[in-house]
């Protein structure tokens, strides 16, 4: 179940210290706090790189600054996480400042970076940290008054003694900094929250609406030059030779160099990064401005040679089908005997679902700043996994980890692409070679054609029906480079069907692939939710009741692998039925249903499709979400709406085909993203409960494709077995023109 207690010791992840100019600094490690056994960090003046990744500073005037540990990729964690701390610290939100960046004190001069972790991981640690800091301030005041700390009260940063004396946090902070960190503190009850659960505008809003330099591409440093990189046009090619005489003539061009040796050395030492970056040599153009670098890059004459096989979409299609038809399976879960169920069935239904490659298309193209000098390596930019990248750069340049200083900027989208940081390695290699601070910039074309893509995947699902019951379910996944992560085989309908089996297979491609918002489930949910509808049709039962009846059979208490909560899921489904008017839609409105659990969150969505001018249009999506306690409803709704629209956009239009190892689209003239007129109204309903907060950035995306596919079936009579829907041949035959809003 999703509310497993997390145990840890405060001493092991928190340290407090006085600040030179007065005030108190609390350093804590958000991620270590989630693990039960950690070694205590050494004293604050001599920190290890990974000791702390988050700080609270309480100044003499009572001002509270929270240095948010998480890089902001648009998920709102930079707002939500400090809200949790502030709640337990008992300070007014308007007196809290949230910052991200180097904390420049005499105790701490290095930037330490945390990875992208969800609210769920930080929930306990953040509350404990806030409560502990509050307790120390109260203890200091109680000592001064000579009273029992338990008799003191706190509100909005002011401590009140039993006799009515008051002291502000700022007045006792210097004394508090000298006290022991208490081991036992009590946390607030949900009903007493004054910050958590309030609509809070994201903390960077003023900077965003006035165009402040927040993003990696906006970063600049004295003496910085710009680099653009020529990479192999096709996956499977490597650099043979190049002529840069024309490029050198372009004003502002400083140098043209070959890079790749360092990255290749790293790949040899650490092959785990192999499917994330091309091993070929590349050509880096260094210039005084972005435009000059981009322009010069385009006139480099490079010769490439075929190194390994250059794949096309037709090859992917064939290989994945061969895998599905083959016998090389890895079993991921097996309950009962599916083959026996199929043999004894009245009806067997088997369907295959297909999806294409997808680029991430972060609105801010990949970029990174690097300044490699003899004394240090300074890296700045948008990255979701700073610790991992700092480590890889140290290894690649054969430097000590403490030479690396990595600063994170706000990110113009992540969606998984900025987990990889292949661009960090390239930027570091270039700066190392030219001995200058450099910003590596990707053009949109670079960004889309040197991706770490979501690979094409096929699912084949087979089900047995006997005596009106679902008696067998066999899910097979054929994928590229990797397969579904370990929890997925235990997602619904695991636990609901006696004979249930999940098998996976993959083949290795030279196209770089990786995680993409809601990995695997972003496509699997559509496949399964479409399939459930077909099963319900075959069994002649109500589609929603069919799902509820299956959920009722699940007994998570008897199977610890089951993470989803069938009762929470049923509640979400019922709410979606009620709010969407499921089954009572007006004439001309066609509805599709889908529900899904991933990232610890339960979601149900109903899509409303109408036919306008002979084509189906998604008008509205009703989305019900159970993500536990909602820290910031304003931010949560924004995430939920975005996830639904992203899910619809990519299932309708997302398609990156390959020919001879080359992606066939590299900019928005050929690659279609959802736009304003195609975006339906998303109506969100949040479940109210006291469960710990769970993920929001991803879980509403997967069911969106399923709900839309099911609504399109209702509207047109056509089932869709392949993404993108807008290109599905059978659907195109029915409708008069391409689907647009």
């Amino acid at each position: 179940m999703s509310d497993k207690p997390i145990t840890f010791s405060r001493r092991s992840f928190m340290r407090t210290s006085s600040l030179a100019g007065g005030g108190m600094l609390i350093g804590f490690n958000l991620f270590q706090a989630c693990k039960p056994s950690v070694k205590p960090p050494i004293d604050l003046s001599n920190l290890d790189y990974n000791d702390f990744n988050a700080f609270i500073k309480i100044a003499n005037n009572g001002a509270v600054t929270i240095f948010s540990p998480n890089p902001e990729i648009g998920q709102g964690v930079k707002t939500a996480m400090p809200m949790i701390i502030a709640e337990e610290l008992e300070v007014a939100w308007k007196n809290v400042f949230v910052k991200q960046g180097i904390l420049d004190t005499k105790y701490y001069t290095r930037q330490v970076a945390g990875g992208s972790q969800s609210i769920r991981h930080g929930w306990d640690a953040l509350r404990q940290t806030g409560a502990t800091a509050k307790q120390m301030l109260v203890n200091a005041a109680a000592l001064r008054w000579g009273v029992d700390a338990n008799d003191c009260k706190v509100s909005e940063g002011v401590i009140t003694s039993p006799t009515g004396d008051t002291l502000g946090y700022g007045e006792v902070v210097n004394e508090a900094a000298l006290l022991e960190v208490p081991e036992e503190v009590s946390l607030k009850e949900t009903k007493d929250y004054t910050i958590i659960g309030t609509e809070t505008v994201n903390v960077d809003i003023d900077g965003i609406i006035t165009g402040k330099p927040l993003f990696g591409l906006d970063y600049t440093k004295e003496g910085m030059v710009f680099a653009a990189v020529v990479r192999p046009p096709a996956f499977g090619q490597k650099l043979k030779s190049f002529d840069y005489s024309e490029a050198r003539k372009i004003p502002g061009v400083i140098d043209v160099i070959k890079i790749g040796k360092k990255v290749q050395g790293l790949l040899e030492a650490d092959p785990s990064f192999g499917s994330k970056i091309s091993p070929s040599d590349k050509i880096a153009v260094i210039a005084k401005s972005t435009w000059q670098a981009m322009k010069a890059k385009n006139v480099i004459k490079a010769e490439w040679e075929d190194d390994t096989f250059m794949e096309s979409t037709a090859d992917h299609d064939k290989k994945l089908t061969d895998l599905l038809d083959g016998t090389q399976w890895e079993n991921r879960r097996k309950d009962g005997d599916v083959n026996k169920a199929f043999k004894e069935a009245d009806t067997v239904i088997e369907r295959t679902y297909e999806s294409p490659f997808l680029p991430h298309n972060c609105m801010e193209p990949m970029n990174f700043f690097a300044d490699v000098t003899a004394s240090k390596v300074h890296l700045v930019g948008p990255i979701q996994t700073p610790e991992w990248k700092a480590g890889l750069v140290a290894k690649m340049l054969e430097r000590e980890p403490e030479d690396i200083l990595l600063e994170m900027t706000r990110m113009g989208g992540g969606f998984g692409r900025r987990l990889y940081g292949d661009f960090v390695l390239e930027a570091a290699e270039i700066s190392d070679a030219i001995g200058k601070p450099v910003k590596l910039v990707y053009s949109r074309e670079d960004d889309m054609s040197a991706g770490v893509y979501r690979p094409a995947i096929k699912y084949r699902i087979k089900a047995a029906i006997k005596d009106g019951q679902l008696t067998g379910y066999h899910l097979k996944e054929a994928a590229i480079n990797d397969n579904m992560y370990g929890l997925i085989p235990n997602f619904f309908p695991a636990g609901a069907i006696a004979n249930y089996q999940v098998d996976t297979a993959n083949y290795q491609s030279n196209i770089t692939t990786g995680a993409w918002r809601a990995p695997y489930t972003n496509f699997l949910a559509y496949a399964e939710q479409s399939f459930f509808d077909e099963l319900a049709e075959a069994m002649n039962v109500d589609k929603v009741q069919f799902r509820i009846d299956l959920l009722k059979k699940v007994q998570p208490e008897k199977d610890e692998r089951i993470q989803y909560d069938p009762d929470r899921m049923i509640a979400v489904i019922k709410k979606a039925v009620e709010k969407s008017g499921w089954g009572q839609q007006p004439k001309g409105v066609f509805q599709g249903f889908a529900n899904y659990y991933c990232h610890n969150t339960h979601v149900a969505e109903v899509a409303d499709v109408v036919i306008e001018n002979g084509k189906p249009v998604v008008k509205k999506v009703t989305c019900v979400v159970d993500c536990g306690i909602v820290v910031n409803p304003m931010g949560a709704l924004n995430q939920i709406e975005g996830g639904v629209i992203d899910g619809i956009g990519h299932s309708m239009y997302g398609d990156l085909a390959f020919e001879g190892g080359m992606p066939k689209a590299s900019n928005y003239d050929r690659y279609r993203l959802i736009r304003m007129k195609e975006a339906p109204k998303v109506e969100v309903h949040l479940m109210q409960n006291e469960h710990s907060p769970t993920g929001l950035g991803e879980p509403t995306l997967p069911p969106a494709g399923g709900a839309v596919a099911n609504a399109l079936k209702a509207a047109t009579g056509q089932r869709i077995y392949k993404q993108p829907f807008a290109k599905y041949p059978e659907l195109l035959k029915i409708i008069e023109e391409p689907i647009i809003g």
Partner: protein
Amino acid sequence: MSTYQLKVNGAQKSVTVDADTPLLWVLRDELGLVGTKYGCGIGQCGACTVHVDGMAMRSCSMTPSQVEGKEITTIEGLSKDGTHPVQQAWKEVDVPQCGYCQAGQIMTASAFLEQHPNPSEIEIKNAMHGNICRCGAYNRIYTAVEKAAKSS
């Protein structure tokens, strides 16, 4: 390289760049006005939208000679301290997710509302259709434009 006299956010600026340098990169690299964003470079996404004589234009697709003598306004110059009604509506509705596309969205919306103070739903959607938001903040963009129209 040639020298151009540009009027940006009310101030006269002299820049020396290659004649084919897009206005986008003149603003970002030469003038340090990085609020205007690069998204595609081919006029397809709207991230680079600025006002040229009050019209919303794609700065990635304009050269300095095309804008000499014209009034260029970037997100930094839309208002003092973010008080333009469109900026305020963006804040009230909490539109941004990652935020990267939003300067372009705001510049498109503000020029549009200048011409269409009482827009219909479809007019708003048509006007904003050229600006991609990869995070899918379209519902809020729509709400904020509607709100700004009412408040100005």
